[in-house]
């Protein structure tokens, strides 16, 4: 079998490095969210003091806005938001971890490996799960005492991307079958 040219691709190498860097940043974000949640629970004045009327918090698709001066956000809602954002960031980190694994495997051999199909499928499901999780967290924040006029939104582009990636994973699965067919061909 010929050595695939893909393992010399600079784009793949750059992608591999970038995906690892983004994964690390996302995990750092998860750690920060956890620390912020713990800090908010320890010092209850921390969060409320920094939230002024006509201001808001927006993180990772989850938005809480204080439209009126009388709006209040409870500590539970803030903690839920921070933990929810941490969870969404963890999902993003897992997307990039899988992407890095796909690129690494593709550089050392053929990209059409059964493990890569599973990884790409996982990326698809995680991409769909992330905006859904953000919506669930927004609803949770509202139930735990978020502002009266809270914005509920579902990032459809993330879901569409997930569906697209899942479809592409099926093409990859076909590629694996074709590669297994020619394995042993001289």
């Amino acid at each position, binding site marked *: 079998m010929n050595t695939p040219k893909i393992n010399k691709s600079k784009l793949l190498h750059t992608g591999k490095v970038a995906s690892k860097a983004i994964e690390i940043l996302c995990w750092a974000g998860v750690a920060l969210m956890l620390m912020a949640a713990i800090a908010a629970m320890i010092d209850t004045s921390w969060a409320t003091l920094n939230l002024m009327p006509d201001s808001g918090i927006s993180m990772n698709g989850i938005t809480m806005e204080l439209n009126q001066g009388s709006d209040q956000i409870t500590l539970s809602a803030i903690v839920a938001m921070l933990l929810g954002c941490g969870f969404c960031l963890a999902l993003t980190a897992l997307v990039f971890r899988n992407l890095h694994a796909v690129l690494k495997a593709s550089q050392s051999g053929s990209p059409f490996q059964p493990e890569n199909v599973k990884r790409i499928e996982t990326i698809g499901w995680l991409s769909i799960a992330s905006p859904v999780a953000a919506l669930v967290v927004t609803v949770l924040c509202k139930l735990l005492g978020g502002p009266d006029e809270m914005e509920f939104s579902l990032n459809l582009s993330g879901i569409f991307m997930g569906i697209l990636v899942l479809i592409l994973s099926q093409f990859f699965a076909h590629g694996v079958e074709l590669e297994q067919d020619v394995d042993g061909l*001289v």
Partner: protein
Amino acid sequence: MGKIILHLDRVMVERKMSLNELSEKVGVSNVNLSKLKNNKVTAIRFSTLEAICAALQCQPGDLMEYAEE
């Protein structure tokens, strides 16, 4: 179901041709020819078969045989 058995090693001995020499004439790597010799392949291209037949002056039937299991 039976299987195809390759007799490349026997034909090479009859033609007194080494693996390296055949590899150069056919344009297939030693590794792949070795797999052919040892029946380790699952498929062969017509182009490879044509080149081997031309190099060894033989027919495809000389190189392979169907055997019942």
